[in-house]
């Protein structure tokens, strides 16, 4: 058993570096982007966060915005797990693993984004219980550390176990994964709820201090996550021989559509509450949607962004609720709009207005620096790199080309497998 596992690891290593020209080009391209990001991070590590656009007034920026978006992507894996395991949907069962692998990649990116945001990454060990001092259960950030790492472990186990069983051509033991799959469903909801509570719990930030944030987070997650998966599946279909049924894409499309409608509705609810009551605390929302006049200056850096996001989401909604959405080409476009729209709306669109105006009524705008953007790019490239790598191993296992008996039995035609966007 152990011998088989070691053999598996060795073969997996070999397979990771086996592929055609496009596969190599893609992986080297991503590695270079990671290197550029890594270089930018080293600059930040030496000089401090002064290399970013953040200030005392806007003390969180692009890192935390991307983090928030990616927690949603990770949580959205449940939208495959629930149909596959609760409703025993056959098509979903074939692809659910790719969703769980995406969750792993997303969580890894989340962890990178919070780490690069730390002023003292060398002191990360202060968060480890017992040897450090972990402020649990009082701090929501402590909860977030637990749920994110727990979710990562759960998915690593589920994916690793199922893939190894498939490789060994053995039926997985019910007890070793089904209870954990159901735990992961609840856990997925918890990661995004806890992340929302990070913001919701702050009494000094009225823009976040609203009960609607957690439901909005989940809805927008169920828009962007499945949208990313639809695009990922479309690519997997093109670069490998693995069959992904149209039905799976259409089920995901229904999920994106429903979640998008609810998401837009919840956003409208928030806008109504802020604008109709016209209370003092509506300044952040006004800043986001219209910009603010303050002592003769106009501050409106986010206005073009949020309107772009809203237009993209509305166009995506129109495509999705009309018969257009059933055509795969249009569906791809709608998914892309959803991803970009949600990335803006709940990334920068949610984080930055929380700091504007400041609790003492000052207005300082935020613009990420080049160095900061390079770090973000590096983190994304790393996530995509490991997702591509996981697919490079998972697809041949799932399609039976990589197994204990056969070893790596890849035909030349599938040599460029694993290429992913």
């Amino acid at each position: 058993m152990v011998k088989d596992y070691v053999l598996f690891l060795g073969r997996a290593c070999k397979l990771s570096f086996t592929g055609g020209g496009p596969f190599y080009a893609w992986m080297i391209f991503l590695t270079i982007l990671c290197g550029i990001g890594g270089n930018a991070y080293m600059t930040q590590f030496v000089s401090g966060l002064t290399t970013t656009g953040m200030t005392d007034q806007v003390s969180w920026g692009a890192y935390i915005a991307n983090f928030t978006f990616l927690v949603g992507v990770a949580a959205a894996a449940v939208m495959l797990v629930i149909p596959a395991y609760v409703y025993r949907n056959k098509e979903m069962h074939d692809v659910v693993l790719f969703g769980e692998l995406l969750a792993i990649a997303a969580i890894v990116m989340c962890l990178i984004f919070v780490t690069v945001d730390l002023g003292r990454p060398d002191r990360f060990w202060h968060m480890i219980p017992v040897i450090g001092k972990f402020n649990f259960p009082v701090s929501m950030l402590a909860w977030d550390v637990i749920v994110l790492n727990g979710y990562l472990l759960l998915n690593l186990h589920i994916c690793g176990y199922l893939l190894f069983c498939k490789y060994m051509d053995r039926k997985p033991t019910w007890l070793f994964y089904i209870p954990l799959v159901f735990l992961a469903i609840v856990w997925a909801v918890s990661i995004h709820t806890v992340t929302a509570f990070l913001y919701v719990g702050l009494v000094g930030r009225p823009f976040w201090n609203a009960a609607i944030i957690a439901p909005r987070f989940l809805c927008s997650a169920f828009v962007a996550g499945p949208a990313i998966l639809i695009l990922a599946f479309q690519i997997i279909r093109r670069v490998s021989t693995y069959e992904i049924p149209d039905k799976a894409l259409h089920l995901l499309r229904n999920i994106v559509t429903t979640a998008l409608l609810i998401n837009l509705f919840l956003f409208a609810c928030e806008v109504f509450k802020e604008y109709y009551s016209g209370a003092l605390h509506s300044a952040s929302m006004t800043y986001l949607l219209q910009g603010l006049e303050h002592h003769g200056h106009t501050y409106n850096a986010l206005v073009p962004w949020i309107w772009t996001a809203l237009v993209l989401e509305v166009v995506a909604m129109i495509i999705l609720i009309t018969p257009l959405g059933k055509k795969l080409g249009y569906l791809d476009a709608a998914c892309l709009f959803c991803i970009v729209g949600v990335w803006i709306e709940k990334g920068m669109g949610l984080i930055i207005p929380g700091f504007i105006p400041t609790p003492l009524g000052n207005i300082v705008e935020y613009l990420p620096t080049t160095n900061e953007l390079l770090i973000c790019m590096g983190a994304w490239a790393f996530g995509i790199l490991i997702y591509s790598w996981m697919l490079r191993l998972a697809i041949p296992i799932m399609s039976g080309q990589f197994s204990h008996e056969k070893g790596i039995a890849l035909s030349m035609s599938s040599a460029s497998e694993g290429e992913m966007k």
Partner: protein
Amino acid sequence: MATETNNEVKRRSFLKAGAGVAIAGAIGATLAPLRNMKSGTLDGFFQQHYTRLSKDDIQGIITRLEGEIGRDYGAKVTIKDPKPKSGVRFAYALNLSRCNGSRRCVTACVQENNQSRDPAIQYIKVLEMPSGTFDLEQSDHYYDDEQVPKEGKYYLPVQCQQCENPPCTKVCPVEATWKEPDGVTVIDYNWCIGCRYCMAACPYEARRFNFSKPEIPKEDINPDMGYLSNRIRPVGVVEKCHFCLHRTREGKNPACLEVCPTGARVFGDLNDPESEIRYIIKNKRTYVLKEEAGTVPAFFYYFDV
């Protein structure tokens, strides 16, 4: 045939060597900025949380820190670690009728507390407010203090309110900030991980972050330092007003009070019935900032005309 295989082997090993060089070069290029890194000490890296340190530990750390400051800033300094006095509960009161917006308190605080001059960090913000409103969104943070007081304005200095129920300590994931028995919320600068969650949590915008290593000219350094207060902070950690605890715990007044040209500021022990602060709370109509936030500040404002 044999030569062909040989060539093939040569070509392969050449490619492999090339790839190796490329990888090594890429790793080197990625890590290149680390050349400018000043490495810390292992003792510093493994230092435990303040509340877990013995007296001897703290003495050792203080000696190390004094050495580091001497080396980095060229100044000879003494760091003390004054403990809270039992039964004392500090509070502050500020007479808004008197404050004339001169910002003397801001500068005195910077000097006393060794705040970074570049980038400039200040604990106290003085807000210029239009008369007739408490709406902070109408405040001006950047008014010209050469021309004060201005007609139709009043001035509202804000610093850490030393809340009874501080949102900042609650959110800290590593308990690097906590409330001391005398009411002062402090930060262990050697434990803070720099996540800045406390800055997002504070409703009074009282916390500042060291985005880079503090720069202070040698001659401007205040050599009388407190471990939990005004010693020079490391890069990447949060700091804020601590009621000058290295002074107030030894019976002196905070620097901002001493310098105030109008006598608008009153500091004292809430538990002392004879104290001026008690007199003010009893006899003036005081209020606190953002009472609705439920933070219960130990910082009281009042108008007395």
